[in-house]
């Protein structure tokens, strides 16, 4: 029997660096196929290839046994392949019905008939979503239903979900699982990426494990258990050179206790968690997406607010602190380097000098309200040299820099504030290999100079290579602490999942 979709020796490279290589993958009609792997394993790129977002560098893709070259998502959709991204592609200011039929409108449209049509269509899928509701008013689960309805409307035979349950409530997850099973019964193929292994085990028919851009194993779900998946996910051979400090490293001694987090709570995301951070150490926070690591540290930095009642307390250098906005936190010496630099990290139309100067302005009061651009350029030059930012000069616009250099500028923008506590959220996400080494060296220098560093990372080798203590998050709280001597990738992953 011919497979519905087949990838043969598929390779995708970005600037010569392979995201995955020589991947063989088959997807059968009417199966639910889970793709699991660590961050950076190549899962998202692989699914984007299937969805026509990227072309293959080498190898071939076959649909119904025929070779195809998908140049765009629209072409993929025409071949019956649709993808539901982590951030939905819906237009929030339009109604559900308008979103479903977007791009498929007739010359003359009658809204009333559009809504009736959409209502019928949604009910045929057992989706109880109001077609007249604005998408912006919907929850994450309902938005996903609209995305799926749109895909089905376009006669998709394969729907790819990238982390479909990351933003869903438990009830919404339940509905999603039922929906996936119904779609499968209708003969549709579902591919989903998930960090939650129990979901993969519960829902899928087959599981493919990716590691370092290679398929480690593809097998029927009944042949897997949690331990086998974890072992396949974290067994590592390629990153030894980059993350060569893992294992046998002597951790730095405990300095002063800089930060105490006591019973902090924020809704269902951060649940009554407590831990401390010490000066002169890198405290690594590991957890799966949605485990509450980022939110906890954003509460510390004043970006988010903890629960109004019984939200816990935070003490910085023994003094209780409570920040409604980030600025007082910055003034007290706390900086947070965001995981999403493009949205929260920098002003893309400004220069390197401008961005670094903005960081400095956040720290101090400028009574004259006059900014010396010469001073800003000198400052940018100094930090560019310290961090090795590769740009023509300090006037270069940050948007024109590579991801790694952008990240360095974001770090410089934070460190110019002379912090006591630096929170780095996914410091090497979307950064090339060479820059990762530079950023890691700089993080080590920060800790060696006595600054308390908190590093949030989803990448285990990074956590193992840099952390003096590893705190593992699960379901909104720290569930395990490990020192480098006892930490292994399998143990950390086990604690984060179980």
């Amino acid at each position, binding site marked *: 029997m011919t497979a519905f979709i087949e990838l043969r020796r598929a390779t995708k490279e970005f600037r010569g660096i392979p995201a995955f290589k020589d991947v063989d993958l088959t997807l059968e009609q009417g199966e639910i196929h889970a793709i699991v792997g660590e961050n950076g394993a190549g899962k998202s790129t692989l699914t984007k290839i299937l969805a026509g977002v990227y072309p293959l560098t080498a190898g071939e893709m076959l649909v119904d046994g025929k070779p195809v070259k998908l140049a765009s998502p629209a072409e993929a959709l025409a071949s019956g392949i649709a993808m539901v991204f982590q951030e939905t592609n819906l237009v929030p200011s339009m109604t559900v019905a308008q979103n479903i039929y977007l791009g498929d409108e007739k010359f003359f449209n009658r809204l009333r008939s559009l809504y009736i049509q959409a209502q019928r269509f949604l009910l045929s899928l057992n989706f109880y979503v109001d077609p007249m509701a604005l998408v912006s008013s919907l929850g994450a689960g309902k938005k996903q239903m609209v995305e799926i309805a749109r895909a089905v409307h376009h006669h998709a035979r394969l729907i790819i979900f990238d982390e479909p349950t990351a933003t869903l409530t438990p009830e919404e997850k339940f509905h999603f699982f039922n929906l996936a099973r119904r779609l499968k019964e209708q003969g549709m193929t579902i591919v989903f990426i998930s960090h939650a292994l129990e979901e993969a085990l519960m829902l899928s028919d087959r599981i493919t494990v990716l590691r370092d851009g290679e398929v480690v194993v593809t097998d029927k779900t009944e042949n897997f258990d949690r331990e086998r998946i974890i072992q396949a996910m974290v067994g590592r051979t390629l990153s030894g050179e980059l993350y060569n400090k893992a294992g046998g490293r*002597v951790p730095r*001694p*405990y300095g*002063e*206790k800089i930060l*105490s987090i*006591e*019973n902090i709570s924020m809704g269902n995301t951060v649940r009554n968690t*407590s*831990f*401390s951070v*010490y000066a002169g150490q890198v405290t690594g926070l590991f957890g799966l997406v949605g485990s509450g690591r980022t939110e906890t540290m954003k509460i510390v930095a004043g970006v988010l607010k903890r629960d*109004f*009642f*019984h*939200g*816990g*307390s935070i003490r910085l250098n*023994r003094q209780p602190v409570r920040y409604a906005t980030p600025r007082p936190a910055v003034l007290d010496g706390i900086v947070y380097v965001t995981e999403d630099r493009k949205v929260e990290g920098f002003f893309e139309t400004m220069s390197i000098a401008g961005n670094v100067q903005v960081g400095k302005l956040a720290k101090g009061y400028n009574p004259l309200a006059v900014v010396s651009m010469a001073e800003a350029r000198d400052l940018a030059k100094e930090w560019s040299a310290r961090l090795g930012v590769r740009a023509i000069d300090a006037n270069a616009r940050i948007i024109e820099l590579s991801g790694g250099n952008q990240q360095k500028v974001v770090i410089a923008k934070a460190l110019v504030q002379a912090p006591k506590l630096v929170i780095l959220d996914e410091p090497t996400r979307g950064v090339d290999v060479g820059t990762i080494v530079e950023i890691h060296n700089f993080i080590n220098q920060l800790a060696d100079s006595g600054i308390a560093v908190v590093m949030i990372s989803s990448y285990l080798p990074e956590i193992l290579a840099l952390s003096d*203590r590893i*705190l593992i998050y699960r379901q909104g709280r*720290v569930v395990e*602490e490990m*020192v480098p001597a006892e930490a292994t990738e399998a143990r950390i992953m086990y604690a984060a999942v179980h």
Partner: protein
Amino acid sequence: MISALKRAYAEFRGFDVDGRAILPMEGPLKPNTALDDAAVALALPDVDSLVAISGGLVCSTGAELLTLELRADPARRTPGLAIAARQTLSGPISAIASDGSNALAIGIDGEGITILGGRHDGRTIREAGGTALNCPTAVLFAGADVLIVANGSNMVKAADWKRDLMGRGRSGSVWKIDLASGEATVISRDLAYPSGLAASGNDILVSEAWRHRVVAFGGGRTDAEVRLEDLPAYPGRIVPAAGGFWLSLFAPRNALVEFVLTEDAYRREMMETIDPAYWIAPALMSGRSFLEPIQGGARKKLNMLKPWSPSWSYGLVALCDERMRPRASWHSRADGQVHGVTSLAERDGVLFVGAKGAGAIVALEPPRMTERLA
């Protein structure tokens, strides 16, 4: 008025104004099983007040003062202990200090301090500055003729420490007593059960158990300087170590106990009507009677108590640097046996840990200590 309003608002919002939040055992206090792994040097029920003297160790069991000698054991890396002499005193012994030569200051629970040996042999001090020394929890020689005494409580004896905790006792005091002149000077009053003493330069370090902290007095300061706070267990005796101090923590803090401490009516009735052994309160040893309330937080699986389950008792020894920052720790967890560590003594590079709850003295191996310090 304003403070009452502030307090009411804080309680409304759920702020921790009384330091009731219990930080987890983490960082340098990360749990391990080192105390359970250590060799038992001597099984001695009710062992307390272990102190190193020239030629060996002394300790107490009830009213008996025991002299212990070290015995090399070829089968083990650490020496064993044997009882060399026994002496019965007038009452239960609650603290012992050595002057480094041949004098011992011995706290007798409910009576005061008795000096054995040395220039002031036979002398008994029953009160200081009008305060009866009925609860001597720690004694320290600060010179041949100067004694520092921690009186845990004005209200109860040392053996009744649980009543002081659950009664929210704040009547402890620390005294400096000149043995030559008999003059007593108060160092601090209104302490929440001072239970350990050590000299640190010109300062006196005091473990304030019910406030779960270690404070320093002296050095020209009028107020106490907090050296270590937010401990997850109640601190007890402090013993000098190379480059720092050993700190024993005799019982774990527990969220349920912290809650009961806020419930006055409940606590009063519990204290009036129930045997202290079965109170909702920390203990030096637990799990021996089915009458104990919610043993191990009911976290028993397949008849095994999980090591992370909340427990009324625990074993914990911390090594702190000269600024009382914890550097390493040795634990006996909820499912362990070496609970209720009340005294420590270092001798010939071996740390002897007196676990009153377990009724045993265990010896920590020197390599293990250096490893932890590295």
